């Protein structure tokens, strides 16, 4: 996640707390961030809130960025944190009830996989969506969630295996 040359011009302005530059930077990467947000929260309005909160946090705390080339990693880690915070709060509101696959079986195959992903705990869900929905490398993910690369690897494997079981289980149930 090296900062590109164009990116570094933005960064110079962003570091001077230029909100326009920051919003432009986000606009260029909106698809990247949106994918993470949507896979995490499945709610457009929630993702908008995550964008909003992340932009403000980055703007406010830009002075705390230690190394320029970590900028995107840093922003992504804030973004993931915001997703996590909103996800937790929402889950608190809904009284924990296991999803009933038989009654509310989604029609589309597409949704099923994403719903299975949603049933993973956040540790495993996060690495999977950073890796396969977003396409970050193991090293980048390690920097974003601040764990060793080895941990990312084992979470990816465990996460995929769990996801496979959930997904296949759901499929069988539906047949």
């Amino acid at each position, binding site marked *: 996640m090296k900062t590109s040359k164009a990116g570094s011009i933005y960064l110079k302005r962003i570091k001077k707390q230029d909100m326009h530059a920051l919003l432009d930077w986000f606009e260029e990467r909106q698809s990247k961030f*949106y994918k993470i947000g*949507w896979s995490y929260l499945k709610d457009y309005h929630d993702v908008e809130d995550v964008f909003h909160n992340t932009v403000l946090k980055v703007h406010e705390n830009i002075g705390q960025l230690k190394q320029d080339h970590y900028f995107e990693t840093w922003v992504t880690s804030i973004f993931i944190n915001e997703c996590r915070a909103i996800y937790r709060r929402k889950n608190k509101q809904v009284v924990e009830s296991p999803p009933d696959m038989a009654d509310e079986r989604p029609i589309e195959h597409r949704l099923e996989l994403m719903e299975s992903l949603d049933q993973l705990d956040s540790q495993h869900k996060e690495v999977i969506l950073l890796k396969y*929905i977003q396409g970050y490398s193991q090293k980048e993910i390690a920097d974003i969630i601040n764990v060793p690369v080895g941990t990312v690897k084992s979470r990816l494997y465990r996460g995929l295996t769990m996801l496979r079981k959930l997904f296949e289980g759901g499929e069988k149930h539906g047949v």
Partner: protein
Amino acid sequence: MECKNAQDQMIDYLEGNLNEWEKKEFELHMEECAACKEELVKLKQLITSLEEESEAIHVPESLMKNVRASVASTQWSKRKTVKRTALLGAAAALFLTVFVGTAIATNGFATFADWWKDFGNKQEEQVENFVQQGLGNKVNAVAESTGIKITITNVVADDMQTLVYYEIEDQKRENEYLIDFSQGLKVDNQEEIFNSKDEPSYSPVSNHLRLHSENTQISKGRLGMGPLSKEEGTIRLSLNKIQSLDGTDGVDSSIREPEYIEGDWHFEIPVKKHPAIIHDLNVETEYEGNPVIIDKLTIAPTVTVLSYRYRNENEERKLDGLSISIAGIESKENYVTGSTFDFAGVGGATSISNGWQEENATFESLYFENPSHVKVHFGKMEFNVKEKADFPIDPSKPFPQIFTYLGTKISIDKVEIGQPTLITMSEELNANRVYQSIDYHFSDAEGHNKSTVINADGYIIDKNGKQYKAYENFYRLHELEEPILYPTEHEIQISREDGEDFIPAKLSIDGYRMIEYNEKVVDIPLD
């Protein structure tokens, strides 16, 4: 190869991360072991499906437009914290690093210098008090490099923040220096002592405050850091450069590039964290028809934090970009208000969740009193009103060019076309002014409109109609009764991304912001 090893390598195999030899070994096992082979195939399918899912996620067109609007609205409503806004931003930034000695006494106010001195003295008294009460540690960690002596004098730590006080003395008595918290500073054991797990690339230092020093040879400051992750420990602080204050007195340092001197200073700062008193409240109330929930009152040794949230729900008076502030907390012995510079990285953070706007308002500490009940005084309510107007600008004609918006004269006083283009704009302030501030932008004939406000000034008017020049008094805004800050002068800087000159063709006003004060006090008993 055993199945366990093959499983460990599956992810790397699929990503193509294995070397030739490893790859061969792995593939050999796949040929031998049907179970592993099946798993590999299934995982590969799963990954392909996930990647297809990713491809299928499309960004809604309105996303960034909505994000820009909500960010603008929040920013607008955050003007109460001067340091984060363009309005007076330069002055505030200046205050945080270098001291300006040019503020003039107005309207019975002491000078900025007096106020600042008093603030510094209060800080010192407070620190001594902390040390006496066992809540702070005297450190006296000294390090010397290139003839400059830096002393970490005291440290105070609680659940909300960690404050490190320091002094810098130039042995050659040539210059004054300060720590620049964003450069040349490192906490060597950051991961161990601060909870950096959530935000790995954050520096733990979130702010810096220059403090008044009686002795001109010694400069003093305070570093504000987040709370420690453990109860007790040692902060290993390293500095490799510090900012020189030479020649910056009274000069706008936000425009000048700061100068640094390099060196090598290391400190071991023993520190002990003191717990805050936390009151979970969950008090439901309303403000002008909008539901407000006061969630929590945290009373730490260094700061009081009130966590509350509100929803914009008054159907009869739909207020766009609503912001509700708390003016102060009254206890039996105290009335504490928020101060722009008193607190470190606590508070100010605002987030939206499910239609609730969440805020953490910070106030001076009530720790020593530990009140058994408090009165929460609500402060101002801010909101936006949409009222569009466009005014054409003709750069070929002489300036000022004057327009009227809702009865207020707005004047474009000067336009200097260049890289960037500079525009000076002023707004009339008289009894007829209906709004607090306008939401405006300039655009050129081709619709380019990215601008930065580099400076703004205006007047603060209090409850009794008394006027104060904003630039000279912004730092004590919270000491006034029901103050409203009216911008009157703006300097705007605009440049085009493509490098062409920006030639303004139009001033567009999207709407305006209003501030209202409504008397409201909520009585809260604390367990």
